[in-house]
């Protein structure tokens, strides 16, 4: 068997495997797009490529009187944005002080963060539920924002600290010589240099609450306060199948913008994750 023949066999086999994998990945996407264009509410008796494609379900979703979908979208974006701003601010401050200052409790603090990072914040599910009920924070967005922000802090503080460590300390020292105060050094010298990691953290802290289901499910009770995850789930769970096409349209409208955002920023995400992985 010549080398050439071997190569052809290898490449053909590779293509076959890859194309099968790609087909398996693509199939659910095509199916849900097809379902969303299907006239009628349920899918029974329909085919994947509908004969009379229609955008009626999309229109229904955008009709504020018939559906809360836009409201859910708005809620989600609001929660994600506030969480992002809050957590980036706190993480930058904490990462900086862990990286630059030596103070009593620093080492223990870092250890605590390392351990907390390993415990998913819904491990305390019951407590969160009971406490939220008792403090009347149940069914509020505030509770969710605080929970998400708190959950993001440990891991991302490590990430930020790792990055700050790579910024030379001489910069701080020379600024201090020139008479800059603590806050000024942080704000005017370090922050501009830390933009890449802050961007990664911002991305994380936007996507994490967006993709979360369990905390939102526990905290949110009334339909007009739902986030997309809970809302979409209820759309299906209430009467499975009966409104499946509407659900499909809703799913497509979430998947497309997020997937585009994700694919365009993918490089940064991976760099952040590998840094996080090797660092802690």
């Amino acid at each position, binding site marked *: 068997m010549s080398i050439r023949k071997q190569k052809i066999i290898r490449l053909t086999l590779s293509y076959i495997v890859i194309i099968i994998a790609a087909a*398996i990945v693509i199939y659910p996407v095509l199916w849900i797009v097809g379902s969303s264009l299907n006239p009628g509410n349920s899918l029974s008796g329909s085919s*994947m490529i509908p004969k009379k494609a229609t955008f009626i379900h999309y229109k229904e979703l955008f009709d504020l009187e018939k559906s809360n979908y836009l409201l859910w979208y708005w809620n989600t974006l609001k929660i994600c944005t506030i969480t992002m701003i809050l957590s980036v601010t706190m993480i930058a401050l904490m990462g900086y002080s862990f990286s630059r200052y030596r103070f009593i409790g620093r080492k223990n603090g870092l250890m605590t963060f390392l351990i907390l990072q390993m415990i998913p914040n819904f491990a305390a599910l019951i407590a969160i539920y009971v406490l939220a009920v008792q403090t009347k924070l149940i069914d509020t967005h505030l509770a969710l924002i605080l929970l998400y922000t708190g959950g993001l802090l440990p891991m991302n503080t490590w990430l930020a600290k790792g990055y700050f460590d790579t910024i030379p300390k001489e910069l701080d020292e020379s600024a201090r010589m020139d008479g800059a105060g603590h806050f000024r050094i942080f704000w005017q010298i370090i922050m501009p240099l830390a933009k890449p990691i802050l961007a990664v953290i911002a991305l994380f802290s936007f996507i994490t609450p967006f993709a979360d289901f369990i905390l939102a499910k526990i905290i949110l009770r009334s339909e007009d306060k739902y986030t997309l995850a809970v809302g979409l789930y209820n759309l299906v769970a209430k009467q499975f199948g009966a409104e499946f096409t509407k659900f499909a349209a809703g799913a497509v409208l979430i998947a497309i913008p997020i997937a585009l955002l994700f694919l365009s920023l993918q490089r940064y995400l991976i760099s952040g994750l590998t840094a996080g992985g090797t660092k802690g």
Partner: protein
Amino acid sequence: MNKEGDLDSEEPKLENLTLLVTLFNKVKKICCIVRKGTGIYMTDTDEMMTPHRKKALSLSLIPGLGQIYNRQLLKGFAFLILTISFIVAFKDLLNMGLWGIVTLGEELPRDHSIFLMVEGIIAIIVLLFGLSIYALNLFDAYENGKKRDKGLQLNSIREQYRNVVDTGFPYLMLSPGVFLLIFVVIFPILFVILMAFTNYDLYHSPPAKLVDWIGIQNFIDIFKLDLWRETFISVFSWTVIWTFVATTIQITIGVFLAVLLNQKDLMFKKLFRTILILPWAIPAFVSILVFAGMFNVTFGTINNDILALFGIDAIPWQTNPFWAKVALILIQSWLGFPFIFAMVTGILQSIPEELYEAATVDGASIWQKFRTITLPMILFAIAPILITQYTFNFNNFNVIFLFNGGGPPVPGQTAGSTDILISWIYSLTLESKQYAKAAAITMVLSVIVISVALWQFRRTKSFQEEDMM
């Protein structure tokens, strides 16, 4: 020291003083340890002790007096006022909280056990905070007393101010984050731990009933009562199987596809890579719900289109426990492989070409090259990530709950047949209101996750970093 103590105790008048000295020595030892911890070596010993530090320290048992003795009036009064206002402000909270957490309420309808527990935890946090200020006060008095003993000049008020600003700045920066962490992360964890030792459930639920401490009864019940034990064992074994099978499959597929797509002479690499990364880009809750539709028995495409195409009869994906499990593992493989795929692709591109060239010169086959170069490189680089993948799936609530709600149900059990620990905890909490049992199971689960995590970061770089020591 003991000998002296015995002698002194014969003289009642000296007893108090001895106690004070013993206490003082203990505190000093702690200071010593603290200072060793911070890397400062302590040179002087007991013999070198002169009265100032001793007096300052013992006077500081009432915060502020030591500083006043050291003639740092402003600081001394600050400590004094701080202490008084701490006592005044928190006296009721501490009193009530500590009483409440011990008794969990005695009388209905006055007492609400859960509120009392919450107050108790807050009281303990406040108390710890107060004690650390107190320790700071002792430490400060002792330090300045020592300076005086050595005849050194004490810091002026201006210097003290600078000092406070310099040392206080990191704490100031940390405070918002730490405050939030304490209340939304640490507080609930403490609450779960406490709850595991109570009888809090639907029948012991405030405000109608009181909750009581029952020790480790919940843990005993879970392992002894037949109903609980059987459910626990079946849920736990499925959780373990689920974690290992689903995670291993997704890792294998991810690595395999990444290696396959890394062949130099392959075309359309970029396109294929983008397609294969799609499942990661789409929010998981959307894909899982879509899959729930695809596997649906009446209108799902898996039975109606795909299996029908191959002439296979419809499979009861959501009503048969075995097939539900198979479906879940298939779904998780679809959801999870792109992450590994992306990571490994990045690593493969960073392996130097020379390694392979050298191997080719030595006559290595493709398989040998993969086994001796590619695989070790990949495993070395992503080992920490792999472990987080396992812990992630161990707690992967979304896929279990959104696909089938943990179902199909098992007669005579509180958990469905595909429930993993975390989703079981969820339904115990929100559906059957078995808070205490759920808390006990959470603790079991957390112990597992934390021990894996600890084992993991003994091996990671961050643990060995020099500035951690």
